């Protein structure tokens, strides 16, 4: 008896070993590719951020220690971009979730025609952000000829320079991002709402719970995981937003819409100061990782 048990144990062990080797073989190519294409550049980025590397002044190149980071502390343009990044990310994510959820609740009540709405919602998602930015810059927001300006004039609100006025420009790029990505939140939340069991609402109505109470105490807790997921994913997109702003305003006027992404890009590839640009990018990375870490902690806590 003991001998057969030992044999079975050995068989399980070889099976487990076989599985482990198989897993490694399947995983290794992808992990190596990621190591090569993401981790190595990241290390090189940090290394560069510790250097003076200005293609406009190549003779100054060399190791600089923390010089770039020290410079950041006294750089108002950096603090401005950091602030704009937080405003941009926070407002677009909140808007997307609030608008997306409201629309999903609304559309859920429409018995027919959801298919058409879903098609309309797919459109912005599949478009390239750079094309979205250019479309808005010309067809939607251009003074005199853009749709929004035409409507604004028709309503007697007058013509505005939607992308040329610093304050309006920030609102405009937030609107562009919200326009493009709200459908994502809408589609995800609509699908989630449709999976909720109807009998819960039946019971709640018997208890004479009002519509608002039903939403607050039944719907919201049930779709909370989906909302948290949407918030995480949308935050990642907002934190790496670039092309739409680049196309619409280029970060301007001045630095009115210059979120950290654009500041790092402009510093590196317009002003050719790659060392300082690298240190800005490192801060952006740190910020992104910190926020995602927080979000995942939050998700686990629920």
């Amino acid at each position, binding site marked *: 008896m003991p001998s057969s048990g030992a044999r079975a144990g050995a068989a399980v062990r070889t099976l*487990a070993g076989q599985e482990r080797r*198989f*897993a*490694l*073989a*399947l*995983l290794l*190519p992808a*992990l190596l*590719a*990621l190591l090569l*294409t*993401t981790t190595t*550049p990241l290390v*090189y*980025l940090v290394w560069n951020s510790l250097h003076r590397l200005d293609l406009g002044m190549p003779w100054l190149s060399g190791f600089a220690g923390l010089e770039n980071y020290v410079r950041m502390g006294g750089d108002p343009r950096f603090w401005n971009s950091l602030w704009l990044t937080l405003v941009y990310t926070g407002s677009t994510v909140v808007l997307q979730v609030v608008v997306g959820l409201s629309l999903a609740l609304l559309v859920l*009540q429409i*018995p027919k*025609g959801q298919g058409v*709405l879903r*098609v*309309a919602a*797919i*459109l*912005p998602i*599949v*478009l*390239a*952000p*750079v*094309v979205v930015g*250019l*479309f*808005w810059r*010309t*067809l939607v927001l251009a003074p005199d*000829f853009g749709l929004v300006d035409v409507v604004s004039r028709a309503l007697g609100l007058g013509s505005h320079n939607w992308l040329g006025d610093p304050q309006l420009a920030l609102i405009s790029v937030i609107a562009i991002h919200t326009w493009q990505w709200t*459908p994502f939140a809408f589609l995800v939340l609509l*699908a*989630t709402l*449709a999976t909720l069991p*109807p009998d*819960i*609402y039946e019971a709640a109505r018997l208890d004479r719970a009002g*519509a608002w109470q039903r939403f607050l105490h039944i719907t919201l807790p049930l779709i909370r*995981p989906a909302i948290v*997921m949407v918030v995480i*994913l949308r935050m990642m997109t907002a934190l*790496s937003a*670039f*092309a739409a702003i680049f196309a619409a305003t280029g970060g301007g006027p001045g630095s009115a819409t210059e979120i*950290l*992404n654009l500041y*790092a*890009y402009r510093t590196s*590839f317009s002003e050719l100061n790659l060392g300082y640009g*690298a240190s800005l990018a*490192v801060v*952006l990375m740190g910020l992104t990782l910190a926020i995602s870490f927080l979000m995942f902690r939050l*998700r686990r806590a629920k």
Partner: protein
Amino acid sequence: MSGTATSARGPRGGGLRALMLWLAAGLLLAVWAFPVLWGLLTSFKTERDVLAYPPKVLFEPTLDNYREVIFGASSILPNLWSSMIVSTSATVLTMLFAVPAAYALARLRYPAKRTSGFYVLATQMLPPVGLIIPYYLVLQKIGGLDTYSGMTAIYLTFSLPFAIWLMVSYFEDIPQEMEEAALLDRAGRLRTLWYVILPQVRGGIAVTTIFVFLNAWNEFLFAVVLGGNNVRPVTVAMFNFISVEQTQWARLAAGAMLAMAPVILIGLAAQRHIVKGLTVGAVKGGGRR
């Protein structure tokens, strides 16, 4: 899909309520579809009609803009070709790496599984602006700027982690018994994966392929920094129509329509899958922690 949930929402109101719902839905439709439809309309206008006030809805359509962006001096055909090559090769490479890795992450037992899963997740969070600087410096050193291989390699940085995680969620859907049965039949692990598991996730592979291709086609930042005269994807070429002196609206619209035609067509054809692909992570997310 929501019939049951709707009936649970309360007694159907009167005609006014229905009207309000339809109005709201119509507005929604307009807000999302209008810029695209307006772009389509503009692409058939002359530059003079574009700048008419009030905007013209009725006008004599012209194909001149399309003729110009296809055959003219600012033809975007070479750019479409660039986009095609980069997106296709990035997609194929991504799927070759991602599918096996996702299967291992979803199904197999091996040491440091959580760590490797977390690593893939972490790489997904790297903002592209952070990667472009080192890539630019390295490719400049080895002469990889403005080449297809250099561009394709950097596209992996955003497509691979995403594809792995999407595929993991599809692999997790397959009942465990299926592969156990196959393994008991002494089919090898590789044969089991190929003949039993992969056919089960065909839909997932299709959805993931679509998403990876869409993202690659729409990419702009890497394309504008690492591209050049040889490799200039169509997203970059859109700026051909915009200069300091003058914006060629109608041509830009025609170019954008051509550039976006592939993704719009794929998006419309695969809309059901896209919604599923978008939601698969979210709906399951609650369970997987």
